[in-house]
């Protein structure tokens, strides 16, 4: 780290480099693109974790979180502009493919225009939406943006802003070529796994281009969090990726605890990790079930849901709910474990191997399944990193991106488990990685189930929690990939800004890339194998 700091200071003397929670570089917009290039090429910062849009009242800007796939270091770069009327920054969409999507998100929420981004449309809100909701001076008057049953205006055009002779000009470009035949799939379609919409240009059976339309379940969680106290914000984590409820809670609790300087007991840590791994098994089971159902093997759903129900029973006994558990809290967990917990987990571990064997027997070796999955939707390692496809989908492309290994949090560094990776990068690999991950999670559970230490399950925390002013960043592994959180605190009881960077957004962002040239029926296979959760990407 010190190394990077020195080198950057030498190369860019005007940049301000400081070591806060993360190494943060502040640079002006004019030099930002050069710096980005240097960081990516010379410091192998090839994974763009997220772009946090910010409204600091006197200025608007972005914080780019970058991670190196080689050294696992994370750095942040801050770029801002004081122009509130027509804020502009330079795009880095040419360096990281995923940036195009992230920048659209920032544009949607803050109205910052990115010069050079090929597709500057709104992402979640409709074209005629008035105002930029995450700005601090946003007018929330429902009369401005009423709920309407009228169809929203559609456009086949998108904007791009380019620099010509020192001036920035706006250009309109067509999303699809004039001769393209565009088929609409979704938002109400059983195979899109939720309310996601694909505008698909096809040439006969072949997909030429997909324009992913999101926002059909955009619930404005980030804005809502700004008006809630820290403990209150936690419950939204259950409702993003509802299968990773425990993992997301865990992440946000870690963030708050680190920021507020709270140490939690070993018992709470073990309980949290066990719950995370149970969720992972349940989530992957549901994935296998629904995925096989998409491919026509309906009965698999009943087999896999059997295990999921067993896990839900374990959770229900302890947390009191089958979903939306709201279990991890600041300082530990809400309640102590149910008396039968250990016994139930052991019972689960005893039946898991048989079940996995059964799944393989019924489905994995099946000729039809193999024909439909092998070699379909190949994603290379470079593309996985550039598109920030993390989680099992990234690992299936050979990118070891498990945050439990790269940035071990809680007690993960003490545990013995393997990071499952594959090299094929096709749908089959994504399917198999998840199947194997169930076994790894079971391994973790087996190590912990007899070693749950005594102690308090929740330490005392102040009734009114205030977090010292500053910026904090946390990244954990959800069931579908890296889940990053950014908190900017101004020292009060509520977050000034809480940015949630979910894994599923990038999973949807890569659909266009990997479906090009495949058959339209493969869209179902590929979309299913990526396993995105729509409320998670839309927030």
């Amino acid at each position, binding site marked *: 780290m010190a190394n990077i700091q020195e080198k950057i200071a030498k190369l860019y003397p005007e940049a301000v480099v400081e070591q806060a929670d993360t190494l943060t570089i502040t640079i002006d917009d004019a030099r930002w693109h050069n710096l980005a290039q240097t960081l990516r090429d010379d410091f192998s910062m090839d994974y763009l974790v997220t772009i946090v849009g910010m409204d600091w009242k006197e200025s608007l800007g972005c914080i780019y979180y970058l991670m190196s796939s080689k050294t696992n270091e994370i750095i942040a770069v801050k770029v801002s502009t004081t122009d509130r009327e027509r804020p502009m920054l330079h795009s880095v969409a040419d360096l990281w493919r995923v940036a195009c999507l992230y920048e659209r998100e920032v544009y949607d929420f803050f109205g910052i225009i990115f010069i050079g981004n090929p597709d500057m449309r709104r992402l*979640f809100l409709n074209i005629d939406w008035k105002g930029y*909701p995450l700005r601090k001076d946003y007018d929330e008057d429902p009369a401005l943006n009423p709920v309407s049953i*009228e169809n929203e205006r559609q456009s086949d055009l998108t904007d791009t802003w380019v620099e010509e002779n020192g001036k920035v000009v706006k250009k309109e470009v067509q999303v699809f070529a004039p001769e393209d035949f565009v088929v609409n799939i979704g938002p109400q379609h059983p195979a899109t796994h939720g309310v996601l919409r694909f505008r698909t240009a096809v040439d006969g059976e072949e997909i030429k281009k997909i324009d992913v339309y999101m926002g059909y379940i*955009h*619930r404005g969680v980030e804005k809502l969090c700004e008006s809630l106290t820290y403990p209150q914000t936690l419950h939204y984590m259950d409702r993003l990726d509802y299968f990773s409820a425990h993992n997301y809670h865990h992440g946000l609790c870690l963030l708050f605890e680190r920021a507020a300087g709270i140490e939690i007991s070993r018992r709470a840590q073990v309980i949290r990790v066990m719950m995370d791994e149970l969720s992972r098994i349940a989530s992957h089971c549901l994935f296998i079930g629904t995925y096989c159902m998409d491919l026509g093997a309906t009965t698999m759903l009943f087999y896999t849901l059997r295990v999921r*129900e067993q896990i839900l029973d374990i959770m229900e006994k302890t947390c009191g709910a089958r979903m939306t558990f709201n279990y991890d809290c600041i300082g530990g967990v809400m309640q102590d474990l149910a008396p039968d917990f250990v016994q139930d987990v052991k019972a689960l571990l005893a039946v898991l191997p048989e079940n996995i064997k059964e799944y393989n027997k019924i489905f994995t070796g099946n000729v039809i399944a193999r024909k439909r999955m092998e070699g379909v939707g190949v994603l290379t390692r470079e593309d996985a990193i550039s598109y920030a496809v993390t989680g099992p989908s990234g690992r299936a492309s050979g990118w070891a991106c498990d945050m439990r290994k790269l940035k071990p949090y809680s007690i993960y560094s003490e545990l013995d488990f393997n990071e499952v990776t594959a090299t094929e990068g096709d749908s089959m690999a994504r399917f198999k990685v998840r199947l194997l991950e169930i076994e790894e999670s079971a391994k973790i559970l087996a190590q912990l189930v007899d070693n749950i230490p005594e102690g308090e399950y929740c330490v005392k925390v102040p009734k009114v929690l205030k977090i010292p002013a500053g910026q904090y960043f946390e990244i954990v592994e959800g069931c579908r990939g890296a889940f990053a959180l950014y908190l900017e605190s101004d020292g009060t009881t509520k977050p000034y800004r809480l940015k949630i960077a979910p894994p599923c957004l990038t999973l949807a962002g890569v659909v266009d890339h990997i479906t090009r040239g495949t058959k339209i029926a493969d869209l179902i296979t590929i979309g299913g194998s990526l396993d995105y959760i729509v409320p998670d990407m839309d927030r």
Partner: protein
Amino acid sequence: MEVTTKSMPYEAWKDNEYIEKLVNELKESGTNVIVGQLDKLINWGRSNSLWPLTFATSCCGIEFVSLGAARFDMARFGWEVARASPRQADFMMVAGTIVNRMVPVFRRLYDQLAEPKYVIACGSCAISGGPFRKSYHVAKGIEDIVPVDVFVPGCPPRPEAMIYGIMQLSRKVKVEKFFGGVNRQEKQQEFLESHPVSGVND
């Protein structure tokens, strides 16, 4: 008349007042014996094979999936034929948050359901906006958008609660006047005039 379904004892139902009100309305409207008996027969059939539309936007939808699986098994009640096309479905279980962008789509799906059609608002989001009520991009309950027959509270409601909700609906179906009632037929021309299509310019 004690209206019940699936051998559930009449006293076990939570809100019998509303069904009694419906029964009275039915009685007062008056029909001749033959049509009345035919109505009963048809309603018996309809109430035991309500087909849902596969419609879920978020968390609540996952509990709906559980409902379809072996443990809660809604096939026991004749509701398992979840249809992906609204044209083939009888009712719509609105499981999940409805946000501004989804509203026109949702409304269109409702319009596409064939009469007689029903809506169950499932979960606090569909009822009132739930935990997201204060958001800038969430509809505060679906009642402003479509008429709702049954509300199932919860976040998410347990599958048992959903079963209870659909059973309430099937009870309601039993006391409807079918001929000349819910089975009304409109001429296409009249229908289109009363439901102008906007936003489509061709």
